């Protein structure tokens, strides 16, 4: 198969997958008596992506701009948690702990940003971001370290670390908790971050959740991910361990150290996601945020849809960010669908997308159809098994649940 048709397939298969997911979800809406086309149009307008159409003008354009800013604001942390999960998958590890790493990062971000009142704003922002990222990294490194020294399965340790982080953070911000705002009077929230420590807004009104520079931090992180993975010795080692830890050990790679470093990098991505959210638009952390946030868990789905590549993760995060924003109660047209129902629909669509991502066979069969009908390119209908590319990085996901077979 030529390189080009491979690349084409790599793009086509996820696209077809997403389209099928939307069709199936549309059927669900039909069954429950709604008009899927109207609902999809409402969701699309809710995402603000209609801003890209030049014929959208006036008031509609203003609203679309606001919605699109929100979509991009929601996309940034999803890119980062997606990268956090994807990086682990590439190393053959399953990082369910992105949510906990995110939580630890948000505690550090809000704590640093609400302390040190006399610091230079630029340095203050950088310090808050760096410490949040390092905290996330340190938290994740625990799981890597436990795997390295005690062989603890990272699925168990990251799940436990998630909940430990969540309850400790809840404790910190709850009423009479050590980090609760003393002026909040029974309201379980942290202090509010002063505006000089907010991430600068580059598009829209800073008072209306305009687009802040977090999206560039996320894109920068994606490029770093790509560079580490494909252009560094570390990335080579990570991938080698992911493919076969025993062979990697035999080749002289320090597998134990690799686990710790890999997890730490995953945690840094998740900590960055938290910093971007807290300094970008939340400006405080409440116990509800801690207990209700799903950004880290959605990162798993984002990474899987993005096939654990940097570019794929960015695209998948945009899709998920748009879906979340498009179905948010404030954005969706209440005449078309009950605003409470819309987020549930999002979950169904996301679930279907990931479900269809789990197998290439459906999309491949559709790609193979032209041949069967007698009018396709010859290679499109080649043997199915041959087309399941053996070096598909997403295959590592199943490997990740399997511990290495002894030392």
């Amino acid at each position, binding site marked *: 198969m030529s390189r080009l048709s491979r690349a084409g397939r790599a793009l086509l298969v996820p696209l077809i997958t997403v389209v099928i997911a939307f069709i199936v979800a549309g059927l669900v809406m039909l069954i429950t008596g709604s008009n899927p086309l109207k609902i999809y149009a409402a969701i699309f307008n809710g995402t603000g992506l209609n801003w890209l159409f030049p014929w959208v003008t006036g008031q509609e354009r203003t609203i679309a701009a606001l919605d699109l800013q929100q979509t991009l604001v929601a996309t940034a942390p999803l890119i980062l948690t997606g990268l956090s999960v994807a990086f682990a998958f590439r190393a053959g590890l399953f990082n369910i702990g992105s949510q906990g790493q995110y939580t630890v990062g948000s505690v550090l971000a809000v704590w640093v940003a609400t302390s040190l009142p006399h610091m230079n704003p630029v340095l203050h922002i950088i310090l808050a971001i760096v410490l949040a990222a390092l905290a996330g990294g340190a938290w994740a490194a625990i799981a890597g370290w436990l795997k390295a020294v005690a062989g603890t399965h990272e699925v168990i340790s990251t799940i436990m670390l998630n909940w430990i982080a969540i309850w400790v953070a809840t404790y910190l911000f709850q009423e009479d908790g050590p980090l609760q705002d003393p002026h909040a009077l029974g309201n379980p929230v942290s202090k509010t971050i002063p505006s000089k420590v907010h991430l600068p807004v580059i598009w829209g009104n800073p008072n209306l959740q305009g687009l802040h520079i977090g999206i560039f931090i996320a894109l920068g992180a994606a490029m770093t991910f790509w560079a580490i993975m494909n252009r560094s010795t570390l990335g080579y080692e990570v991938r080698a361990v992911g493919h076969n830890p025993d062979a990697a050990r035999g080749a002289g790679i320090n597998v134990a150290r690799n686990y710790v470093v890999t997890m730490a990098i995953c945690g840094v991505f998740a900590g960055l996601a938290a910093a971007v959210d807290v300094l970008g638009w939340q400006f405080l952390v409440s116990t509800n945020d801690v207990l209700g946030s799903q950004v880290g868990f959605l990162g798993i789905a984002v990474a899987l849809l993005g096939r654990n590549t940097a570019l794929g993760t960015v695209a998948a995060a945009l899709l998920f960010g748009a879906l979340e924003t498009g179905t948010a109660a404030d954005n969706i047209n209440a005449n078309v669908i009950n605003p409470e129902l819309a987020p*549930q629909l999002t979950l169904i669509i996301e679930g279907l997308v990931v479900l269809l991502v789990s197998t290439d066979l459906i999309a491949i069969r559709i790609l193979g159809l032209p041949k069967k009908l007698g009018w396709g390119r010859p290679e499109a209908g080649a043997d199915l098994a041959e087309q399941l590319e053996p070096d598909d990085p997403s295959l590592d996901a199943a490997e990740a649940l399997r511990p290495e077979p002894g030392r």
Partner: protein
Amino acid sequence: MTTTTIIRSNPAVTTKRVGIVAVVLAAIAWILPLPPILARTAVPSIVIGLIAATLGAAVLRDPKHRRLGGVAVGLGLIAIPLALAMTNQTSANVRTVFTWSALIASGLTFTTPLIFAALGGIISERSGVVNVGLEGMMLMGCFFGILGADVCNSWVLGMLIGMASGGLLGLVHAYFSLHLRANQVVSGIALNLLATGITGYFFVAHYGDNGSPGTLPEVPNVSLPGIKNITFIGDAIGNNTNLLTWVGLLLVPVVWWFLFRTRAGLRLRAIGEQPLAASTVGLKVISTRYAAVIVSGMLAALGGVYLADGFDGSFNFDMTDGRGFIALAAVIFGKWNPFGALAATLLFGFSSALAYSLQTFSTTLGTLFQALPYVLTLVAVAGLMGRSRPPAASGIPYVKE
């Protein structure tokens, strides 16, 4: 270090024995400030805890017994703040928190949903299919158990409908894993999202803002006539234990017996270890795996039915709250053995019960105590569990040659 010298100089004192003594000492340090002994000074616990930790640290140097040493150090050190906290409270307060019979009763309620899901996970993985979708299957059981009980006005039918919904999700997982050769982890994660969406969608569509009705036919509690009135045991398990708790506990030996003592169980395990070899001798790999995954979904859903219709009496968005993942952890922790998983879920259930009851001491610190089950599980997993080995073919799509 003096302790190290003692260990080295006396041949009768093996590292292992020292380690065991250290763990026992640590346990004593834990028990002293609790009822029925209820020591009112922390000094003995601190001294014994420190000795245990020191011995443990010495044992840590021997790479062969590192785990034992680690457990002793951990337990010994945790005993110190524990003893300080306990002796800081009034003895009445300590008695309220450590009413052992009540702790057992409450621990079992936390254990029940987990054990069903963990058994489901074991059956599925033993047949060679990784099931990360336990969480979603539980959640299906929660909602459709409530819906069924409400619509049919019968908890039995509710339970069956709930189980069927989980089985259906299992069927989807099986179809994707077996026929479409899906990546099973990805498919499982997808089913979790899907189940959250489906249950949320129908919950909003059917019940709206009112939530599920307050009075539903619930899975009953059973009282055992023979032991109901015995002190302690009666309070712990004689009276208000839910029917499903008993079913769950009973299923543990049943599943073990099925897996390790019956022909069908042997075949199931063979298919999970060596599908090609199993298929060569005429075993039906695909249909066995289908059955295992569907049963797995039904069991997980039964845990959900208990959670919603046995314990809470209502449904709420995403009410499983990560329990499916805890069950997944219990499967691994229990080394794919029902009794091992039971031990893991009991550890988790009882420390959850303890965490809730510790809120008597302080509501502020109470939130922090909620992390206790997770800390203990993490310590136990890291300290006690060696490298685990899953069924050899688990997670690998089966392609017929």
